């Protein structure tokens, strides 16, 4: 049964992807992947963590159908490897899921092949006569009865006449083999040892290894250094925030070039300063200092992280003002995304210090949060949002910029062009983009269908 389903999936795989671009086919592939996993291991249906990963994967699959973009494709593949990795071994860190997912997707088949040398169960010889009977006899009878029915029913004959199997060639067969290989790997995922077990047994907490006289004096020295360093850095960052507030009051009088320079320099400096801040904190709180009398150092660390968060808020304000005045772009959205990730990094570092967590905790939590943010970010049609904001909220929209974005905004641009008075050159460009996109949609086969196909079709019906 399982082998037959894998065979079915292999044929479906080449039917979905042979000489097709991406669209509905990837969503159907996602559904087949999920069914394949549940057929192999039905118990997964009861596991919440697994279901969440599966929903994330399906969500990215739906988003590929809604608006295909490189961001959605990236999220899709990451979600795929996360899901496959979690079928290989449960309750692992997300990065171990990724490693196991990639390995399972490409290497599981060969590992299984090797295991067959040792497996007595699989050494049974293939019963070719049995397979010849099970496949051959039905095929022969189907052909005979089809020929008979064609002679007796002209409608049936016409339908059979229209079945075109010319697409089946060597490349199609090769793709089916690849599909079989992939679905076999999906339903027989394997984990990499010993890293998987090691990760599973490694908790999130640091453990007290005790103090002796030698390391006690070292820890005292480290604590003094930490206090001095963090005090000086806190004073410096306070001074920086003061000057930043002064800048924020002047922000409304700045020109586009000045504001752009401010935001970009601010973000570059912020990236480095926050990474450095996290590294300094991790250095001091890497070991026994966590268990020493360190209340003052922890308070100072909390203060410093708080001040770093204030710097992030100030950069968010600058960036928001920049967007309000000069429009949305991918780069400006990227800055907001980065600032969110940085804030999460600082907050988890604070939790690590206060709750005496280890470095693995930081990796696990921060990568998981990044993954969730990535998946959630795919639910937004950024091209459409950018276009809508720039066209409808800005006094002087950069139409050239929005025209150059992907086809995800083509319908919106066309509607804007039809209802607003814009320059002739932009009208020509928008018409060209829209018509090319329309042609592309009309040329789509059923495998390549996207959400805009449905919109166009319903508009035509109206």
């Amino acid at each position, binding site marked *: 049964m399982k082998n037959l389903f894998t065979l079915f999936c292999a044929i479906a795989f080449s039917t979905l992807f042979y000489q097709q671009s991406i669209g509905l086919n990837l969503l159907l592939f996602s559904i087949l992947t999920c069914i394949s996993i549940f057929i192999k291991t039905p118990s997964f249906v009861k596991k919440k963590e697994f279901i969440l990963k599966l929903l994330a994967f399906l969500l990215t699959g739906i988003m590929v159908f809604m608006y295909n973009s490189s961001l959605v494709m990236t999220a899709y593949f990451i979600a795929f490897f996360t899901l496959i990795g979690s079928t290989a071994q449960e309750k692992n860190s997300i990065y171990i899921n990724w*490693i196991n997912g*990639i*390995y399972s997707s*490409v*290497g599981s088949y*060969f*590992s299984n*092949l*090797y295991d067959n*040398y*040792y497996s*007595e169960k699989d050494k049974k010889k293939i019963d070719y006569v049995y397979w010849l009977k099970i496949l051959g006899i039905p095929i022969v009878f189907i052909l005979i009865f089809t020929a008979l029915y064609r002679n007796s029913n002209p409608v049936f004959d016409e339908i059979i006449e229209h079945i075109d199997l010319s697409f089946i*060639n*060597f*490349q199609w067969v*090769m793709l089916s083999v690849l599909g079989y290989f992939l679905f076999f790997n999906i339903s027989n995922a*394997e984990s*990499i*040892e010993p890293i998987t077990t090691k990760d599973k047994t490694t908790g999130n907490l640091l453990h007290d290894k005790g103090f002796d006289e030698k390391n006690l004096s070292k820890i005292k020295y480290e604590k003094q250094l930490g206090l001095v360093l963090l005090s000086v850095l806190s004073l410096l960052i306070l001074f920086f925030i003061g000057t930043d507030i002064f800048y924020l009051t002047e922000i409304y009088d700045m020109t586009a070039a000045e504001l752009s320079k401010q935001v970009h320099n601010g973000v570059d400096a912020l990236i480095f300063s926050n990474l450095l801040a996290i590294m300094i904190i991790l250095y001091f709180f890497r070991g026994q200092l966590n268990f020493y009398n360190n209340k003052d150092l922890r308070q100072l660390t909390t203060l410093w992280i708080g001040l770093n968060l204030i710097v992030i808020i100030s950069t968010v304000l600058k960036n928001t003002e920049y967007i309000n005045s000069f429009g949305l772009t991918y780069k400006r959205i990227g800055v907001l995304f980065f600032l969110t990730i940085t804030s999460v990094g600082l907050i988890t570092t604070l939790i690590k210090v206060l709750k005496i967590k280890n470095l693995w905790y930081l990796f696990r939590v921060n990568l998981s949060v990044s993954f969730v943010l990535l998946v959630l970010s795919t639910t937004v049609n950024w091209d459409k949002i950018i276009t809508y904001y720039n066209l409808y909220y800005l006094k002087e929209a950069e139409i050239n910029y929005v025209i150059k974005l992907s086809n995800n905004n083509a319908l919106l641009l066309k509607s804007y062009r039809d209802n607003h008075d814009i320059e002739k050159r932009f009208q020509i460009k928008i018409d060209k983009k829209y018509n090319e996109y329309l042609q592309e949609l009309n040329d789509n086969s059923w495998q390549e269908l996207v959400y805009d196909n449905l919109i166009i079709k319903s508009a035509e019906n109206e």
Partner: protein
Amino acid sequence: MNNVPITLLKSTLTAGTIFWFILLQEENLLYRPLMLIVFSIFPIIVLSSSIIMISIYPFTVINNNTFTKRDSFKKYFPYYTLVTFVICLFSTIAFQFDVFAIAFFSSAFITLMFAWVWMFKPKKNEIQQNTDL
């Protein structure tokens, strides 16, 4: 190790078959040179054999006394797979999915994976020992 000659032979045949099957399906190919296919077997022998001897054979030798073939396979094969896959994938992307690059790197990847299985194939007595354990 006795598996070496047979592994190299099988690998050459696998690499050559996959490479030319993918390439010959390309409709833009101007001609289908039979002699080139025959003579290409020599560079394929040299290339596949040297890559296998350099990158897989050492794993059969290290820890030979402490590890069984199965242990070595289980320990090193996954990491080798990951590294090879990443190299082949990025190389194919770097060549902008040119059909020659697809043929070369996909045949290289599949051949190397099979080469691991053939190179580490246990003898009958080793299988028996493993079953007894």
